[in-house]
């Protein structure tokens, strides 16, 4: 029962202090145990030390290796005991059999927690591995909280703690927490978040979860003022009841987005060898998450999209939307998709249609809703006028602007200019931000790109730059209209359901 420290059996009758999460996520002193003493080492310990340095971690790092020496200009201490001051946190990357001893030394040195990057524990399924994991739990019970083993660790942009191998993750903090057994998904999301505009409060890859894991971390995040949106990837859980209570409690306070892996038969086999836990039945999981009021997503892309929507949009439902974009078919499919998700795209009143029509080329455009702007070169100023007019319909709660920027490529080539030079993307993003500020109604930008080959890298660059401008202004961007509408539907379910 690692989820609850009170239940761990210990020989000594000692009262342990409450977990000091502040020291764990924002440590001022960190020991990195298991760096290479030789120049050019590539072990996890060295990787972490170099990543933390690259991230600009402001606290004090103490590398440890029994051979001593120097690394990246820092003195390597032979033993944890030799470190000249108390430590807040430790990164442990030594061979599995040395981990319990290192952990105990860190505890005695005052560390509130340690992340164990090493593998070779319960996930092996061997007696030796299980016994070592049990020793970790026993050490943890004496008063040091453990992340891992077999994990990538903690990423906290505010403090500069980073996951492996993450020397280049963003230092911009935000409101999104992510919990995961899988380190791979954590680091992928951390990187994806950087370009998508997801800003994290903390990301925890807890691997085998020998000590701190989903339920306890959910309780912590539910009350963490730095976190407004909780997201997680789960393979298996340790204690169903504790998890249910924790996620229900958390989801009553803030959105909890869950990507549950290992629901297929093949997936369950692979879960067992991946993080030594059970996958569970698909329909039961679906029911449990619904009952708890959590948001279930089904792949990493949807996970990122839904996190983005929850973190950037106001906390309310959006039952009626306008869709503004180029092309009749886009509008038709937008209506179809919206209806599938229970979202309305109502025809705008005649007066508003007239105003919109004044800003669009004629013939070919349609001002009904979806609004077909007919031509991809409509100026940002006119698009803003369209957004302002459509927002005057009281029913409209959110607007989607689908911009086909790739059409600027032939224009650019015709004039022998760079596409980024002739496309008014900065003006576009500014116009959208102004429209949001003036109307109080959020806009989601959609930037589809059907031309992604090597000969069209200029478009890829343009889209990336446009996205970056939007993100700076706090406007969520999606690749596809369908993704945006599905994300809105999740928001509607959350704020329209249990949170009523």
């Amino acid at each position, binding site marked *: 029962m690692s989820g609850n420290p009170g239940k761990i059996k210990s020989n000594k009758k000692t009262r342990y202090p409450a977990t000091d999460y502040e020291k764990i996520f924002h440590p001022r002193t960190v020991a990195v145990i298991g760096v290479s003493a030789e120049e050019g080492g590539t072990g996890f310990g060295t990787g972490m030390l170099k990543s933390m340095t690259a991230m600009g971690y402001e606290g004090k790092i103490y590398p440890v290796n029994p051979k001593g020496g120097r690394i990246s200009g820092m003195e390597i201490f032979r033993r944890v005991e030799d470190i000249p001051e108390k430590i807040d946190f430790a990164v442990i990357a030594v061979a599995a059999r040395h981990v319990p001893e290192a952990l105990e030394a860190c505890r005695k040195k005052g560390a509130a927690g340690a992340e164990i990057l090493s593998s070779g524990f319960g996930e092996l399924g061997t007696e030796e591995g299980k016994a070592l994991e049990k020793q970790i739990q026993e050490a943890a019970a004496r008063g040091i909280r453990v992340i891992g083993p077999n994990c990538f660790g903690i990423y906290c942009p505010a403090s500069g703690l980073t996951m492996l191998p993450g020397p280049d993750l963003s230092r911009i903090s935000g409101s999104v927490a992510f919990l995961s057994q899988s380190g791979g998904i954590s680091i992928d999301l951390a990187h994806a978040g950087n370009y998508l505009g997801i800003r994290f409060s903390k990301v925890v890859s807890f691997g085998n979860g020998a000590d701190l894991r989903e339920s306890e971390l959910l309780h912590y995040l539910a009350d963490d003022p730095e976190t407004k949106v909780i997201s997680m990837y789960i393979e298996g859980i340790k204690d169903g*009841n504790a998890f*249910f209570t924790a996620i229900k409690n958390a989801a009553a306070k803030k959105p909890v987005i869950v990507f549950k892996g290992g629901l297929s038969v093949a997936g369950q086999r692979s879960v067992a060898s991946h993080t030594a836990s059970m996958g*569970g*039945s698909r*329909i*039961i999981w679906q*029911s*449990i998450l*619904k*009952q708890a009021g959590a948001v279930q997503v089904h792949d990493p892309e949807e996970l990122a999209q839904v996190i983005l929507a929850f973190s950037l949009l106001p906390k309310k439902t959006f039952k009626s939307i306008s869709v503004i974009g180029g092309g009749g078919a886009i509008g038709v499919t937008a209506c179809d998709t919206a209806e599938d998700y229970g979202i309305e795209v109502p025809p705008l009143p005649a007066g508003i249609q007239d105003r919109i029509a004044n800003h669009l080329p004629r013939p070919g455009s349609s001002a009904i809703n979806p609004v077909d702007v007919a031509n991809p070169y409509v100026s940002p100023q006119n698009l803003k006028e369209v957004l302002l007019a459509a927002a005057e319909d009281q029913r409209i709660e959110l607007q989607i602007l689908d911009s086909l920027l790739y059409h600027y490529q032939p224009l650019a080539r015709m004039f022998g200019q760079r596409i980024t030079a002739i496309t008014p993307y900065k003006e576009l993003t500014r116009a959208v931000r102004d429209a949001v500020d003036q109307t109080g109604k959020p806009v989601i930008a959609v930037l589809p790109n059907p031309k992604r080959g090597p000969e069209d890298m200029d478009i890829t660059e343009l889209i990336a730059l446009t996205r970056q401008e939007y993100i700076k202004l706090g406007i969520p961007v999606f690749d596809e209209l369908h993704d945006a509408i599905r994300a809105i539907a999740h928001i509607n379910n959350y704020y329209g359901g249990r949170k009523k």
Partner: protein
Amino acid sequence: MKNEKAMRIIEKALRQGRKTLSEYESKQVLAAYDIPVTREVLVKDKTGLDKAIKKIGFPLVMKGCSADIAHKTEKGLIHVDIRTSTEAKKAFREIMAGMEGFEGGVLMQEMIKGRRELVMGLTRDPQFGPCVMFGLGGIFTEILQDISFRHAPLEARDAREMMQEIRGHKILDAVRGMEAADKQRLTGMLINIGRIGLEIPEVSEIDLNPVILSGANPVVVDALVILKQP
């Protein structure tokens, strides 16, 4: 706190080394938890037939009842729409002959008329423990697998949501001249199935299929309680 009446039945079965409760016993456990079941009498001897007929009234359903017998329909152990005592006596003889020496009797129960069949149940998930199931019953349970689950304990809202969640949820509305189902009663049934799961760890599974809507009122027509293997 455990329900004493239900526990007496379960403990007796466990002492006899049984893995299931008979339909009759299962329904007594359900009734002890205020779950509406068919009115029925277990008759072990043909001398008891007249008394049972008088108590339940025609039309009747007669079923072979033993904890050891599964697949009653396939074995010809169910006779429905019995309308005279001659028919009842004939059915009694045939059922007893078909019991192949298993200990038990003939369950004489009221015939519930209703075109809408539901399923309810309890399963124990290895991770989450007791979960209550709801869905379309009868043959549709297998064909459509239109079912939903909720973790026990259930709040009334959980029960309402799980009923709304199945694709065929409109079956509970007023459709084709049939009354809307008594959702409050259905809600209570689902909550109480969850209570059995929480209060009696000896019960490993419950399968109530069909639960027939007699007008607006749900009634458990067939029931099976599976006990935890020691």
